[in-house]
């Protein structure tokens, strides 16, 4: 019986501790977009949420509207305007279709993504293989 109470107590303390330890999302990395050809600007920030999930958030964001535009992470330090990642065989990680060409928006980053490798966010036109804008990320 005493053991049961002990275990229950330990569990209660554990939930308390984890509850208190539950912090808000922390920004890990951030950077600003550059892209003259397609007028891309704004900020990209990668957050680590309290449960460990990674999230990309675009703020003050603006780019030109276009066909089949996606948000990708690329394994490069930066990217030039209209860069073709297929030709340069730059590895990219798809985060989803661009939700809007203006405004704040969130994208989930797959678990286990190596942020040391994928250092840049690109707004990428898949149809024409052209980089609309890139935001090199640096430690927040």
């Amino acid at each position, binding site marked *: 019986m005493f053991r049961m109470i002990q275990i229950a107590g330990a569990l209660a303390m554990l939930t308390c501790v984890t509850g208190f330890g539950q912090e*808000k*999302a922390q*920004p890990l990395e*951030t950077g*600003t977009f550059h892209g003259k050809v397609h007028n891309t600007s704004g*900020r990209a*920030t990668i*957050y680590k*949420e*309290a449960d460990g999930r990674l*999230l990309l*958030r675009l*703020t*003050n964001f603006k780019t*030109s*509207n*276009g*066909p089949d535009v996606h948000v990708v992470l690329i394994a490069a330090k930066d990217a030039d305007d209209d860069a073709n990642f297929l030709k340069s065989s730059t590895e990219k990680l798809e985060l989803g279709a661009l*939700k*809007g*060409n*203006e*405004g*704040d*928006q*969130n994208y989930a980053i797959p678990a286990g993504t190596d942020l040391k490798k994928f250092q840049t966010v690109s707004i990428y036109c898949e*149809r024409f293989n052209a980089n609309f804008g890139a935001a090199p990320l*640096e*430690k*927040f």
Partner: protein
Amino acid sequence: MTIPASQWWLRWKWTLVAVCLPILVALWWAFRPEKLWINEKVNEAAPFDTSGGPQPILTGRFEGKAQQTSGRATIYKTPGGEEYLRLSDFTAPNAPDAHVLLGRGEGDLDRIDLGPLKSNQGDQNYDLPQATDLSKYNIVVIYSGQSHAVFGLAKFEPF
């Protein structure tokens, strides 16, 4: 004998339509020209709690000038409306008389002294004087009075 234009058109119009229409549709699909004028606006909220606690409002990375300085400078705003500067991930050369200044541009000497650099390494906070106009004072300078040298400079951009 040449066929009059009107007859030629009558004879070939459906063939022309059958050939041209798919081409036009394909071109439209590929380029989506209407998107030049149509904007898609979104406004997603952060999926996590941003209320309470200081929020970053401006941030920038240091660039070393005379000597190697690196790290990040961020202006936070507390829920009470106070603003402070936080240096993080920070490294600067060790000098006895280094100060943290807010400036209005690289050449502009109108600067606000936030105090001596607390340490040449590590995270540190500096209070801003009340009513500092951050739209004007948009850079942080690590300045050595003794050698009159700018050790490092960070430009703020909205967070």
